[in-house]
């Protein structure tokens, strides 16, 4: 077991190195940050001096080696756009992204699972059809469009909710939270719906199809034959058995929510890591892009590790299997 975790950690390091290396080879194409750091009217001598100072005149693998050796020492460099240490910026932005992701994921689960159960049980009711049709919107509309629609309706027309930003935040031991203020909570509503809508419809459809599958099995028929109440059958037996794939998908989707909050954060000017990243791309802010990509790589590595370990605990067959085969 420990050997398994250590092996996975070692693989994780390799994954992050590869992510960093590929990222640096691509940075050649995002252009020259110096042309954005200096005014358009700056002299060529100024530009060249700055390029040399930043080491941008060196080939990308040399830049990558410098980055990697500094990163190992915990130094991710200075943002070229904001002139502040990248690690500070990421730590500052992490709470905003995690809070948004947490609310969006909760929303997706709390609304998605009951809707999935309902539509699975009442396949032919008109309400189920309405839910399914509406869920198509969630699956097919791009996030930025949903965000803009929500802003138009709830901020511009109705004036109920703010169109941008995070509201007032409170510092709790180095963590800036929006959960403790009225404006912070209000500001969470539209972005979390925008970010969670796709996951919500995904979970709803997954639960529905799993329910349909499970309801046909023998043990459900047997449970009904035993004279159990509908509630006990539907929730105690059927839903519980649908949850295994739902948990797997939710775990992986949580990574996706954190990593791909970029668009939602841009539309709502949500001061999280995604917004930081997109602005870094536009500015060719190489230190921020590199650190962000490595961090996201790290988050996925950790989530995958946790999911794998969960399997290990949940599924006894896997344990016996690996024990006999001596690991896989």
């Amino acid at each position, binding site marked *: 077991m420990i050997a398994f975790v250590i092996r996975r950690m070692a693989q994780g390091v390799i994954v992050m190195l590869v992510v960093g290396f590929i990222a640096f080879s691509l940075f050649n194409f995002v252009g020259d940050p110096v*042309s954005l*750091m200096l005014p358009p009217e*700056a*002299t*060529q001598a100024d530009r060249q001096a700055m390029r040399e100072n930043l080491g941008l005149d060196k080939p990308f693998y040399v830049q990558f080696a410098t980055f990697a050796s500094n990163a190992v020492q915990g130094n991710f460099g200075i943002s070229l756009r904001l*002139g*502040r240490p990248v690690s500070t910026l990421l730590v500052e932005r992490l709470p905003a992204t995690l809070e948004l992701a947490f609310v969006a994921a909760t929303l997706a689960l709390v609304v998605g699972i009951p809707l999935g159960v309902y539509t699975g049980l009442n396949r032919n009711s008109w309400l189920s059809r309405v839910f399914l049709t509406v869920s198509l919107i969630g699956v097919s509309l791009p996030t930025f469009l949903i965000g*803009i629609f929500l802003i138009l309706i709830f901020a511009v027309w109705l004036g109920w909710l703010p169109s941008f930003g995070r509201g007032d935040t409170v510092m709790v031991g180095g963590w800036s939270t929006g959960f403790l203020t009225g404006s912070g909570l209000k500001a969470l509503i539209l972005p979390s719906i925008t970010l969670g809508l796709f996951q919500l419809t995904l979970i709803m459809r997954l639960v529905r199809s799993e329910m349909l599958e499970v309801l046909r099995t023998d043990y459900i028929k047997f449970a009904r034959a035993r004279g159990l109440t509908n509630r006990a059958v539907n929730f105690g037996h059927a839903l519980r058995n649908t949850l295994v794939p739902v948990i797997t998908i939710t775990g992986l989707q949580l990574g996706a929510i954190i990593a791909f909050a970029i668009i939602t954060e841009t539309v709502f000017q949500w001061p999280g890591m995604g*917004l930081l990243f997109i602005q870094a791309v536009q500015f060719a802010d190489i230190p921020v892009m590199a650190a962000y990509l490595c961090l996201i790589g790290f988050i996925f590595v950790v989530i995958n590790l946790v999911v794998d370990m969960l399997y290990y605990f949940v599924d006894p067959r896997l344990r016996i299997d690996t024990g006999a085969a001596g690991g896989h």
Partner: protein
Amino acid sequence: MLPPMSLPRLLAVALLACLPVLAAGKTLRYASQDDPQTLDPHSANLLATSRLTANVYEPLVWRDREWKVIPWLATSWTQPNDRTWRFRLREGVKFHDGSPFTADDVVFSVERALSPTSQLKVALQGVEKAVKVDALTVELVMREPNPVLLSHMTNFRIMSKAWAEKFGALRPQDYTAKEDTYAARNANGTGAFMVKERQTDVRTVLVAHRDWWGHKAGKNEGNVTEVVLLPIKSNATRLAALLSGEVDFVIDPPTQDVARLRAAPGLKVQEGGELRVQYIAFDVFRDDLLYGKAGGKNPFKDIRVRQAVAHAIDTEAIRSKVMRGYSRPLGSILTPGVQGYAADADKRLPHDRERAKRLLAEAGYPDGFEVTLDAGNVQPAADIAQAVAVMLSQVGIKVRPNIVPQSNYFPKIEKYDTSFYVLSWGAGVTADALYTLQALLHTVNKKGEGDFNMGRWSNARMDELIQQLQVEKDQAKRDAITREALLLVGRDLPIVTIHQPLIPWAMKKNVSAWFSPVNTVYFYKVRVD
């Protein structure tokens, strides 16, 4: 989350909050696409940054509404000889932390702005060092003469020496360092507004500086006592925030939405001309076209072809279709408002397709030729490249627009890797002809002259005129030299000017602001009624 504050500043802020005098003050919520990169007045020389620092830090000399240089932190100046400028400083000026402004601060700020990591060395062009004469007198010693030093110095802002020493912010940010400097996140200037709160990419809050010297000197024309600067990246969201009343002012509304904003109840749009010119330029250096097909020749070396291009471009159509009315067609590389602009040199060749075709035939290209037009993917440059391509195809020149990201575009044209390109040039820095002519039209040399002459045009008379401008002090003579240079450009057409863009600002009806030619809001001139 509040940035850490020094005790005196904390006290100052607390004191400010208690004062009844300012109780009637107004708050302005101001939105822009980009957040200021830093609060350091000598670090990034970028518009988003200077829009903020110009309200917090002040220069020795500044400009009035006609954009003429006026005394500011310096009350008078003399030029004892060619290599020396002597400034008398204003008495009774206080920094935001309450400390007095003296010659030491000026000497320190000159050193700081000339240090290697400073990006505002241009604001002190030609200056070697500063010398304190007495507590309120400073001399600038010149390395080389700069007759328009005062114009440059309007961008040179003063920082407190004691404050910078106390917090270790002696030099502007070094991007290879491990840490950021204190001055990147905190500010202590003499300006009308002081920074109360700074959260990058979230908000920056400015409050009125109660001890600002300008209150007594009658410089305060506004009634705003608090400004909340909100960066909102997405165009749609920024406008939504204005329409929903969450912000009072948007400095950069997207042009395509301006008509709608004008019609919206409670909002208004104000526009003004930036000192900027949009132009296209030719590679007149190579003997063959680098990007294009013209039978082994470079047609742009022929004046008739350049004239044909000028005749083929319909600037009026660009104004109404591409710019939606937000431009002023221009025939001169200098815009009105720049010292040296001459109305009689502001003439374009008329839009005339037949004449263009005739000129092309005379030059030996009756069937035209093919060429690539390079542009950065910023508006309006990209749209202009598209429009010009269509207009030139109507006279037989097949143009392929090549639009690349801005961060790739500059490195490309800097290497002269272009045959034909679209560029814009802002003269707001000095508002003087020399700056523009030197960068755009001087023969390329290693001394920084001709740095933006990517077409490598070279004209001995132009170089001579620029050299005269570098030393001539008499304004009337300078204007005459400039006029000759502009007429020369108009005759030889190394570049074809298109227009001066007009900049729209969108705001609530109860807000009034003064449009400055550098597209910056000065909050002490803003009224909210």
